[in-house]
Every structure is written in C-alpha cells, then in structure tokens.
C-alpha cells in the first residue's frame, strides 16, 4: 500500500489576518485588505499603489525571538506561520525524527527588503552593504531558519517558481513523504516584496491595478501585490494517526507541468494539464462538492485562460463547481500565494464554506463559471484544489480531500 500524506497543522500570516482563525473570519466574511499605500526609498523616491500589506498591531512579528528579529521580513512571516502550524499539529521533532523531517519553503524572490536596502546603502548613501545582507536575502533563508528553529534535519531547501512557488513546495514536500525520503515535513511559502524598488519593477510591466483586485470581473485591471506566508505540517498518514494527531485533510493529488511557450502569457493546456495530473487518482462523485481556489489574479490574460482550463478538465460538470479567487481579498502574494491559498482551500473543506470572490461587479462572457461572486457559498465539499500558475509558464496544482 502506498504511503499517503495528511495535513496536521496550518499557520498563516496574511494581509487579512494573522493566524488561521483571523484569516478564516476575514475570508468567509469577504473582508478585503487591499488599499492604497505609499512606498518610499532613499528619502527621495515615492510610489503610491493599492497593495495588501500585513498589519501587525499585536507585534507578533516582533516577538519571534532575538535570533529571528534580525532576519528579513519574509523569514519572519515564515517563522510566525510555522510556529502556529507546529503548535496546531502538536508534532514533536525528537532526535529519531529529526533526520526524517523535511523543510521545503517556497518564495518568488527571497529577501527583497534586504536586497533593496543593500543597494540603496551602496548606491545612494555610498555605504558598504551590511555584512549579513546575504544571510538575509538568500531565498533559502526562511527554510534554513525553520530547519534550525525546529530541528528539521531531513531534506530542506527553497523552491522558487514565481507565483507557483508555494504550490510546488507543498507538492514536492508531499512527494518526499510519499516516496519515503521523509516522514514529516514543514512546508509552504513566504514572500515580502512590498518595497519601492519591487513595485516600480512591477509597475514597469503595466500589470499593477490602480484600482483593486477584481478577479473574473469584466472590468478587472490587473494585479494587486500582497505579502505574507502560509505554512503546513504534512505527515505520513499512518504515523500521524498512530500519534493521535489532528487530521485536517488528506492530500488527494499534486500536479505540475510547464507550458514551455511564453514568459508572460499562460496556456490553457498547461493549466488544464496540471489540474488533470492533480486529480489523476481522484474519483469525483459529485462535481458540486468540488471547490477550486483559483489562481484568479485579476489580470486580463489569466482569468479567461484559467476559466477555459477548468472547462477543459471538467467539461459539462464545470458549471456545478464553486471557483473563487481569494486574491480579491488578500492580493497576490506571488511566491507565497500557493501557501495561503492552499490553506484557504483547506479551510473551505473543513468549514463547508467557499470564500467569495469580492470586488466582482461586471460579468465577462469569457469568464463564465460560478465564482461565488455574490458571497460565500455554504456546501459540504469533498475535494478542494488550489491552482497556481507562474510567470514563465510553470504550473502547480494541489488537491485535498477529507482525512
């Protein structure tokens, strides 16, 4: 009998809530965290754009220990989310388990705040960069800090595939457990890219919305960038059951592929192929009991392409599904999107509620599925998917069922 993987812990740092409970309250109530914010640099440059930033009124990110205080913002997000996930799972990493514990954390960029600071120090203030800049900005910094914090000494690395990083990380970690290379894993993704320099680069592509994120709506006007982290604890099922762990869901499948076509424009075949692979061993009894947390970026290209891909996979059953994009509330977390969106899908499975697509106000004939655009949909879901499709044509889809 092949090894199966279950989720035993979840942790979130999102623009619309720190902690799983706060995040779910916001998601299910349709609370949008997007708003105009000003980003400055070197006392000279300034840019104001709608973004979805993490507010931390309780200082959670400032109380992670002195060793974490000096790390980049993206590592702090990952540590805060992982602390919550580990606590929820009750997993103890002892000496025997340590070498069998994986740590796979996705990020699109890594320590963007530290990158920006190093360059501004050098080129604007004519100072040398801080010698810990490298330790802060390397994309594996978050994975390394988690490995040190929890004693995870099995396979550990960062995954970077732009907006699919989180889904790739979770899928790869699950595969390591399925294959027997690890027994447990801490996995997910983190991103903290809200800096003047980063936003200018995104703006240069004319891809950022000046308004808000309106996935699948005819008047959608582009991306709104968010920040945060979503982390899961995964375990081999028999092991988890034997120790009496909370079983939040079971991995139903993981699909990944590449369009192999274009750096920007997504391809229907890639997206539909990844979804098909993720459901390879799934038998769907009732398509109305399927929820898809869509990639749903609110860009001109993604939303109709993803809609066509879902129709390609589900055919006539597509109209029975509930599909929503929670990016409409928490923005696009880039590399971390697959982390917090997988958690949104898992919470939809747990609570029997699909969070809505907010900010939707104009039907588009090319986007013609049920997007929960009028509010959260209560339904007893059997299967949930989280879609992630990256710039560069890299696709990853994770699917979960009740455990």
């Amino acid at each position, binding site marked *: 009998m092949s090894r199966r993987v279950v989720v035993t812990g979840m942790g979130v740092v999102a623009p619309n809530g720190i902690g799983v409970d706060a995040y779910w309250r916001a998601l299910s109530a349709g609370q949008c965290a997007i708003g105009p914010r000003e980003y400055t640099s070197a006392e000279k440059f300034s840019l104001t754009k709608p973004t979805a930033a993490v507010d931390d009124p309780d200082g959670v990110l400032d109380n992670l220990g002195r060793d974490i205080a*000096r790390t980049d913002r993206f590592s702090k997000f990952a540590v805060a989310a992982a602390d919550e996930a580990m606590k929820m799972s009750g997993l103890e990493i002892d000496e025997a388990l340590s070498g069998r514990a994986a740590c796979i954390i996705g990020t699109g960029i890594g320590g963007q705040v530290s990158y920006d600071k190093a360059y501004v120090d050098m080129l604007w203030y004519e100072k040398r960069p801080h010698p810990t800049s490298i330790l802060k900005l390397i994309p594996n910094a978050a994975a390394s800090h988690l490995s040190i914090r929890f004693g995870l000494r099995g396979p550990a690395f960062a995954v970077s595939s732009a907006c699919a990083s989180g889904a790739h990380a979770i899928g790869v970690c699950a595969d390591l457990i399925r294959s027997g290379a690890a027994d447990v894993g801490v996995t997910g993704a983190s991103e903290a890219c809200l800096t003047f320099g980063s936003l200018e680069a995104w703006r240069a592509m004319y891809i950022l919305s000046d308004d808000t994120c309106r996935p699948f709506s005819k008047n959608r006007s582009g991306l709104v960038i968010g920040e945060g982290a979503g982390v899961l604890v995964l375990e081999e099922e028999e092991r988890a059951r034997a120790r009496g762990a909370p079983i939040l869901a079971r991995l139903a499948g993981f699909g990944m592929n590449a369009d192999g076509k274009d750096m920007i424009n997504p391809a229907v075949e890639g997206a539909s192929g990844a979804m098909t692979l993720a459901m390879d061993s799934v038998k769907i009894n009732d398509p109305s009991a399927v929820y898809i947390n869509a990639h749903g970026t609110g860009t001109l290209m993604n939303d109709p392409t993803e809609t066509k891909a879902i129709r390609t996979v589900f055919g006539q059953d597509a109209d029975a599904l509930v599909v929503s994009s929670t990016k409409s509330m928490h923005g696009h977390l880039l590399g971390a999107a697959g982390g917090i969106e997988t958690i949104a899908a898992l919470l939809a499975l747990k609570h029997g509620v699909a969070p809505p697509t907010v900010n939707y106000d104009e039907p588009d004939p090319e986007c013609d599925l049920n997007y929960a655009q009028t509010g959260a949909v209560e339904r007893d879901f059997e299967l949930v998917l989280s879609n992630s499709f990256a710039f560069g044509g890299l696709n990853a889809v994770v699917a979960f069922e009740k455990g």
Partner: protein
Amino acid sequence: MSEIETTLLAVIKENAVGLSGDLTRDTLISDLGIDSFSVVEIIYEVEEKLSVEIPFNANENPFGEMETVGDLIDALNSLIKR
C-alpha cells in the same frame, strides 16, 4: 577600561541572545548564545562604532580556542590594532 573595550562589551551584550545576568570579561562565550550570524553582526557594529576595519573571515571558526569574553575582546583588540 578603554573606549575600545567598553564598545566591544556593549556590542557583545547587545548580540548575546542567550545571556542572563551581567557581562564581564570572565563570562563564558558558551553562555552568550552567539552564533555565526551574531559574530558577523558584532564585527560590523564594532567597525561602524569605532571607525575601524576588522579583517575577520566570516567562514573561520570565530572562537577557536577562546573560552571567555575577555579572550574574545583581546582577539578583537589585536585585530583592530593590526
């Protein structure tokens, strides 16, 4: 105590994440909770505060045979004078 020594003690204390109680020359390095990351921080801060260069290779074992904070201060002192 010299200005250099006062500065060194202050910077080490700031970065000694495992320290409980006072920091003196006799404090054991193993009680400071300092890792390699902290050592790089300490070197940088001392360089900035004293406007000196400390040619320390971050890839070396930072403590070698050193046992106490006094040993560390002496080593930094000798690097500063170099």
